[in-house]
């Protein structure tokens, strides 16, 4: 699961960072078979994980 992978990379992140109204990171799933993906990454200090880190 993408959320768990990101949390394992950045242990300082919490669920609040992913909330669509209060967080800076948005994960989305369009229920089209393509799975979870990073819709927005606007965290002020942490860089967006690379595909290699998420693999």
């Amino acid at each position, binding site marked *: *699961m*993408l*959320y*768990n992978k990101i*949390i394992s990379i950045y242990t300082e992140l919490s*669920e609040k960072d*992913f*909330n*669509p*109204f209060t967080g800076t990171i*948005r*994960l*989305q*799933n*369009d*229920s*089209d078979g393509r799975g*979870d993906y990073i*819709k927005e990454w606007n965290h002020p200090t942490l860089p967006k994980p690379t595909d290699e880190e998420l693999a």
Partner: protein
Amino acid sequence: MASVISAGTSSGTALNMTADTSGQLQLATGASATTAITIDTSQNVAFAKGFTVGATAAPAFSAYQTTGTSLSAGTTTKVLFDTKQFDTNSNFASSRFTPTVAGYYQMNACVFVSGTVSVLLTILNASNGASRSGSLTNIAGQGQSASMVSSVMYFNGSTDYVEIYVYSSNALTTLNGQYTYFNGCFLRSA
């Protein structure tokens, strides 16, 4: 064109009628015979001041789930509604409502899950940016949670659409049947 019955302001033309073969009927008033009411061949009635009556002219739909949607933790997921109860203007497809009549619509949705969660947000995700979010209710003693959203939204009648997304703090599956639904109806034209 249309067959027209008009009420004029001159004594010689106080009531005037013109006919054609379009099957439409218009009622007009005033010195310039301004159209007030139009009735089309499907008996839809449109009032020039912004109110429309009729199945085609006033779309309404209602849909629900027969198969639950899997939600990942910390993720905003599109909710699927695979069963339609009604769809008067064929504007609901692929869990997306795209009304072909411009105007204001009342939209409602509820997502129900088994389990109590800290965050469950049902979102009317509108393509025109006018998205709205609902609130969470944990149902004490039942181990269930629900998030409902209700809003009046404007659609342009061509490209604007709305889908239901839900954000969950926990990995869950939505409850199907009567619990998770999406419906809406036309209120008035712009």
